[in-house]
């Protein structure tokens, strides 16, 4: 069996996002990082690999800068790296992204796929289920841990009442939530080894995916609406009004 982990490079969650000319200005992003949920997917994939699960390939689709993230994955133990070079990911629709990633997984010969439940840029969450369908694989999302279970795999996932352990067989896709597992830190030895692991760079066409026409086109980006100035209320009687504002205006509860 082969294990693949799908990674996405996103603006660090603490980075400022600025909009210029109706688009998010990517050149103004101070730091690009591996999407946080993907970090848990990678860690769990590494643990499965170390428990006797074969080679781990790290796959990403994105512009040239994304290679750095693959090297980071190599530094903690990914065996091989595949980079599908797409300069502007946001120009693709979900069917195209999924087709590219599913083809890359097939290209790598993997049948167990780890990914984040959603990427920290669009926070969509379409990739895991979509790739699973294209691979004809089963899909488990909101996963916090995966362990070998005889010939199949046991995943811990969130359920309405807490958590549950579910068993699935390959081919399968695990979409990770923040895990209960501890992320490993790289070390100098791993960083030196990562230098030797060169990513295989492919274009969508090399995988037989046509990206010429997208069903989704971005009209524009805008900064979030300015929050109204702070409002002050007198007395505990105002709690009801504040709670309804939190629900309807702020949309946070």
């Amino acid at each position, binding site marked *: 069996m082969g294990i693949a982990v799908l990674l996405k490079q996103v603006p660090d969650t603490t980075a400022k996002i600025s909009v210029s000319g109706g688009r998010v200005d990517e050149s103004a992003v101070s730091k690009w990082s591996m999407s946080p949920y993907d970090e848990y997917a990678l860690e769990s994939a590494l643990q499965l690999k170390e428990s006797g699960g074969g080679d781990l390939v790290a796959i990403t689709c994105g512009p040239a800068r994304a290679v750095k993230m693959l090297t980071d994955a190599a530094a903690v133990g990914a065996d091989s790296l595949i980079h599908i070079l797409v300069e502007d990911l946001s120009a693709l629709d979900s069917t195209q992204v999924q087709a590219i990633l599913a083809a890359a997984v097939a290209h790598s010969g993997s049948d167990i796929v780890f990914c984040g439940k959603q990427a920290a840029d669009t926070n969509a969450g379409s990739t895991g289920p979509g790739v699973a369908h294209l691979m004809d694989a089963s899909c488990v999302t909101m996963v916090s841990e995966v362990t070998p279970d005889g010939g199949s795999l046991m995943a811990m996932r969130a359920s309405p009442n807490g958590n549950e352990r579910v068993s699935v067989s390959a081919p399968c896709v695990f979409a990770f939530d923040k895990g209960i597992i501890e992320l490993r830190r790289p070390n100098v030895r791993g960083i030196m080894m990562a230098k030797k692991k060169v990513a295989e760079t492919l274009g969508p066409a090399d995988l037989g995916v046509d990206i010429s026409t997208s069903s989704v086109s971005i009209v524009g980006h805008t900064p979030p609406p300015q929050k109204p100035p*702070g409002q002050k209320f007198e007395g505990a009687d105002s709690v009801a009004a504040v709670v309804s504002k939190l629900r309807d205006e702020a949309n946070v509860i």
Partner: protein
Amino acid sequence: MDVTVIAETSGGGLHPVTAQLVGAAASIGGTPTVLCAGGTGATEAASISGVVKVISVVGDCFETFDSGAWAKALNSVTGGDVIIAAASPSGREIAATMAAIRGIPIVQDATDLAPGISVTRPIYSGKAIETSTVTTPCAITLRANAFESAGEGGSAEVSTVNQSADVAVAVREAIAKASERLDVAEADIIISGGRGMGDPANFSHLNEISDMIGAAVGASRAAVDTWEEIPHGMQVGQTGKTVTPSLYIAVGISGAIQHLAGMRTSKYIVAINKDPDAPIFGVADYGIVATWEAALPALKEELGKL
């Protein structure tokens, strides 16, 4: 335009967001058919105004959550130009799988729709808003409370279809929700107490509220330094954790600059303090001038109504 709405359920019944999905479908000129997975909520869905048809899809596969199987079963009973679901974890997953089965695009987490179809959604955790157009057929998931609910008073026909699919996921063990508290660094909602809480025992009120809304409980440095019952791990601020939740509720915290440094980038800040001149009100979106003794019971009551 035929719109398929995937009913959102909770606790064996229909989730109120379903009426918002129907309302949104109508707003783009759609005629909504509601699909009820496993038949849950079908009768309630039929009474939503504007619904033309409810299909109750029943089958063995709905015993266990397996998005692949559910999507296959639901997908085979309806066509339609647009699939609309809630942007909940299960809604996103089922809609994404149905979109993949149909080979159509999906746009998740919309906060506004316009005919066309124009979709607005927050990206980068709300640090920017994206507007895009998507061609039909397509799937769209909608964020809760962002759309007007359709009214009641509908009387759509309910048909039941027996349709199952192979389930590939076997549940081996259910584990009840751990009572362990969320860490402030991880939580999307935080309720913090300061020295104004008077006594560490009074943090129990914050704990109760946090349980109701899935929040973490934090504290100011003054509280942590004063009471050894309040551990340093709860401290928000310069030498504690720096947090950016969607909602930060500060109770009995005056708002020293060191505390503000750790929480001022929270998306929304509610301050409860009896001193109307407390600096915390300077950063609060909603300030309530009241004692915690008066405000917290009211807060509990109001949150309980949600």
